[in-house]
């Protein structure tokens, strides 16, 4: 999967967790959990959805790399290549 495809998947799954959010206004360098008020259960739901969809295991120790949209795309695209 290339970066654009990863980005589309990521934004769609974030949209499922925060359906009322206008993702076009989301700063890709901002902490999206803070911006969108996503709690721990919402974030776990997001990780479950992304892991299944992108076939990336996303261990807990890597959660920090999913902090912003930009960092998450970089991480998921790289991890997707490895698996």
């Amino acid at each position, binding site marked *: 999967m290339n970066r654009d495809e990863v980005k589309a998947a990521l934004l769609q799954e974030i949209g499922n967790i925060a*359906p009322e959010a206008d993702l076009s206004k989301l700063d890709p360098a901002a902490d999206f959990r*803070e911006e969108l008020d996503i*709690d721990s259960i919402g974030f776990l739901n997001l990780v479950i959805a992304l892991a299944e969809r992108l076939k990336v295991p996303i261990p*807990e120790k890597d959660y920090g790399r999913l902090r912003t949209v930009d960092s998450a795309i970089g991480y998921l695209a790289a991890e997707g290549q490895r698996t």
Partner: protein
Amino acid sequence: MGLFRMPSLGADMEAGTLVEWLKKAGDKVASGDTIAVVETQKGAIEIETFEAGVIERLMTEVGQTVPVGTPLAMIRVQGEKALPEPQLAPARAVPAPAAPSAPAPVRPVAVTRLAAGEIKASPAARKFAAEHGLDLAGIDGTGPEGAVLFVDVEAALRRGAPAAGAAAAAEPKKPSGLEGMRAAIAAAMARSKREIPHYYLGHAADITASLEWLAARNADRPPADRLLYGALLLKAVATALGQFPEFNGFYRDGRFEPSKSIHVGMAVALRGGGLVAPAIHDTDRLPLDRLMGQMRDLANRVRAGRFRSSEMADPTVTLTSLGERGADWVMPVIYPPQVAILGAGTPTAEPWVVEGRVVARQVCHLTLGADHRVSDGHRGALLLRAIADLLRSPEQL
């Protein structure tokens, strides 16, 4: 013959709107089956029966708003004969409030649009609108986050129907879902502060061992099998409460009724405002994996605006956990007729003294709001210490 009635889903509920029958006359039902969907200020709630038998007769029509206690259906218990004649007067609808002079216009509601361009609506509303060829986009939603509810479709139909007279068209606009929920929370909390002599206690718990245990346990598991700290906390609270019955139950008619079961209500904040605290049944007896699954399921259903009547009606105590991005501690307000509420602040690293030396530990500030008519501070302090002890030895949970 048993009567299936409009249940009270909280101290603040006076009436509910029947939006869907999930069973029909002649259907067999078992205790615990969901047989109808009712819309309240808290959203759509699936109502369960606690009677087993055959549905003899449905007594309330879809769309009717009826007071709590109104018979909705008659259930013939096994062994009884079918009734030849109805014996009860049909349900009375709650009279509509006085109508304003001008009809409310049907406006498009932009805020209810989802990212995919889909309109938020309850399943019953979606079905009802489709049956009448109505576009959900043109209907004002009064549910959570502006979701279109059954009653909204009904109101739009009345306004839009060409044959409807001026009186029918002049349907007053109901308060929005959020305003309704705010009113419900206000009623319950005002009653709590008026009637319950609260006392409050706080205790800082060292949860380093819990977080390390979780990290090790989750390390080799796929995301769907991982546990959150919230599940450990819920289990610790429920387990500790087993030794402190005076914090688990209801204060009704001037006396305390302890509950044998421990159904911890989990306060869930809704996106866009408001909160509900539905119960996780027999919290103390669930293994952690199942408890986590139920927490996730409940939180997801609550946010989709769909939960069951028993979950709303019977929490025996409540836990309000501020999560990972909240405040350090909370002084929680009891949800009547319960007699206690536990609070848990956001875990943070803090200086902590261990064997005379200051070290950094992960700390969670536990608080208790409890009813002085039923318990005293000494026992409350022991309860908080018992919870903290369990969080220090998570392998016990």
